[in-house]
């Protein structure tokens, strides 16, 4: 029986959602200051309006939802998923006010794509947008990569024990440290350290490649954010093809692969446990599936004779596949070249890489390496059981920070989320096909959206049907939050309508 939520439930959800939106408003101060420094006065106003709107919502909910209660499990889930929607609606204001979006829906698409570190976009005339708006696009993806709840946990939640539920609701469940707020700060410590090193490396490379210092610094910072957060946004419409440099590609590969690792793995290495890098089930899973998909794509491209020599072929195949597998979405190809040069097998290999995706509790999306590892191990365990004597006790373990015995619960949970992802991939592919797009291209694009990758083969465009835009927004949201908190929000809304008081 569904119980209708009480006033206290609404108050606690409103209060914490408001806190997160205040966090979003404070984030906007960074692009605002960027535009002030670079004298982009119309963009400055866009951000003043947007910051004010976020603060009105945030303070308004604090005013209307005054409560001393802490978050319960279901509250945390609803806050996590609901706040992403509100943050998308309000975060879209700068995009829409810029005049570069065909509609408010398009602006929301881009912002959801940023928060969820997807990287698909509908913004038009990207090559003429302001530095402030470009800063906002990349900051969205950097903050979204860590999680906007993590942002709020770090700065705005003071000792709320129930905050852990909102953190879990955002698709992360690793406690790097005993306290969830310390965990959030540890995530930021890792991310900011990488930011300094990665952005510096890209800046220096950019200057060597012939960029002016200011542009090299900004491009370095933004491309780092796009790579580390596995977001895939880039400041120019040519994406990373713009740089025409093996050096730039290598630096971005290192950053995007690092960004796709589990924060628990980063923390283990950070605290001296370097062996984890070779023992961790997600690392093994990533190495196996990346190698396989690169092999398939390389074979198909070699057969088609697209590239002139083996080195060029490997460079192109590895970059796109690493980008797809880490769910980053950077590309050194024109979008349509996936269709016109890579062909069906290349498209399929990239789709598989995107579908599998990155590590759990990382900035990336997709089914995740740990689930692929768990399901593969469980399958092997079943085969061993089938061929062993009846009385033999067959157990299987995976190694993720520590050895974990594979129980039915772990396998069932991995299967459930995997099936949910596969269903979502299937739905987006079918809807695209129903709208007249080629099935393989629809599958590529749908998987790209739902796995938060952002590679495009040309289906995503400002002129695509509004229903597909809405579906992709939902797919990005569901994929990033890994379903549970969105289901909790759905249950909450249903109980408001159908529940008994």
């Amino acid at each position: 029986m569904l119980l209708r939520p009480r006033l206290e439930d609404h108050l606690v959800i409103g209060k914490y959602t408001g806190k997160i939106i205040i966090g979003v408003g404070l984030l906007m101060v960074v692009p605002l200051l960027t535009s002030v420094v670079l004298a982009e006065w119309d963009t400055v106003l866009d951000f003043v309006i947007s910051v004010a709107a976020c603060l009105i919502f945030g303070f308004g909910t604090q005013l209307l939802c005054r409560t001393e209660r802490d978050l319960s499990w279901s509250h945390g889930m609803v806050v996590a998923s609901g706040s992403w929607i509100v943050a998308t609606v309000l975060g879209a204001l700068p995009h829409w006010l810029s005049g570069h979006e065909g509609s408010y829906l398009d602006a929301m698409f881009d912002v959801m794509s940023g928060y969820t570190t997807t990287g698909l976009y509908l913004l038009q005339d990207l090559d003429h947008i302001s530095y402030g708006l470009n800063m906002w696009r990349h900051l969205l993806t950097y903050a979204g990569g860590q999680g906007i709840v993590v942002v709020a946990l770090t700065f705005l939640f003071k000792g709320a024990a129930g905050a852990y539920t909102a953190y879990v609701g955002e698709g992360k469940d690793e406690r790097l440290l005993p306290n969830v707020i310390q965990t959030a700060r540890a995530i930021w410590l890792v991310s900011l350290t990488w930011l300094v090193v990665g952005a510096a490396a890209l800046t220096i490379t950019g200057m060597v490649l012939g960029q002016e210092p200011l542009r090299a610094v900004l491009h370095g910072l933004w491309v780092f954010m796009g790579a580390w957060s596995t977001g895939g946004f880039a400041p120019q419409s040519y994406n990373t093809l713009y740089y025409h440099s093996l050096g730039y590609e290598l630096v971005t590969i290192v950053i995007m692969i690092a960004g796709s690792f589990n924060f628990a793995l980063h923390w283990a290495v950070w605290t001296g446990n370097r062996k984890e890098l070779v023992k961790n089930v997600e690392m093994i899973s990533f190495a196996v599936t990346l190698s396989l998909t690169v092999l398939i794509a390389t074979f198909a491209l070699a057969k088609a004779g697209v590239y002139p020599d083996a080195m060029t072929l490997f460079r192109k195949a590895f970059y796109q596949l690493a980008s797809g597998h880490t769910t980053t979405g950077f590309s050194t190809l024109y979008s349509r070249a996936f269709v016109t040069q890579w062909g069906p097998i290349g498209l399929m290999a990239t789709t598989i890489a995107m579908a599998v995706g990155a590590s759990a509790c990382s900035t990336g999306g997709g089914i995740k390496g740990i689930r692929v590892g768990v399901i593969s191990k469980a399958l092997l365990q079943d085969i061993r059981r089938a061929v062993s004597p009846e009385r033999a006790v067959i157990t299987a373990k995976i190694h993720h920070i520590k050895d974990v015995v594979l129980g039915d619960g772990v396998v069932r949970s991995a299967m459930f989320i995997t099936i949910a992802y596969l269903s979502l991939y299937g739905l987006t592919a079918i809807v695209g096909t129903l709208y007249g797009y080629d099935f393989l291209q629809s599958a590529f694009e749908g998987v790209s959206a739902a796995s938060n990758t952002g590679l495009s083969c040309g289906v995503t465009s400002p002129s695509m049907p509004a229903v597909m835009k809405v579906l992709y927004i939902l797919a990005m949201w569901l994929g990033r939050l890994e379903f549970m908190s969105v289901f909790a929000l759905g249950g909450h809304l249903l109980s408001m309508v159908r529940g008994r008081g």
Partner: protein
Amino acid sequence: MMSRSARVACALAALALLVPTTGCRAEGTPEPSPNDPSSMTLVEQPKEYDGTDVTFIGEVVGEAMKRGDMAWLHINDDPYYLMNVEEGAQLGGYNSGMAVWLDAELTEKITYYGDYKHEGDVVEVAGVFNAACPEHGGDMDIHARSLEMVRVGHVVIDPVHPWKIAWAIGLSLVAAGVGALTRLSRDHPIDARR
């Protein structure tokens, strides 16, 4: 049968879906590409044009990235090559163009590169199109022999809109007011009175 509240919720959801699909800038007829083949055609039919001579006109965007005696340029032949969105161009889809590899000396002719504050020079280059350039890691590019100026670009002034000033002031005042009220009332929880 749906309850009244459910019907209201459905109506609001439908409205919420409809409203955002309306634009703040109407879509019009976008400027067509001046090129045949255009950048879009080259990407769609790379095999047909691979190794052929092409002339390509468009706006130079970003910067010239010099690599020794040579340089990279990015030339867009998209709907914004004559006028960009900041100047009031109709929205016409994504940017599109071609990467061009040429003698660095030729880039000295360029005055403006397209970005937020500039509409870049429109230039014409002539050279060979490569679907997967063997010299440049398989990138799709044009190796240009010549560069001619078609139209010098200009500084773009995106005017500050008065209505934005009014909204910025109004909303900032409201935010400050709500913030002050929140601070004053934070020690008085609503549910504590119940």
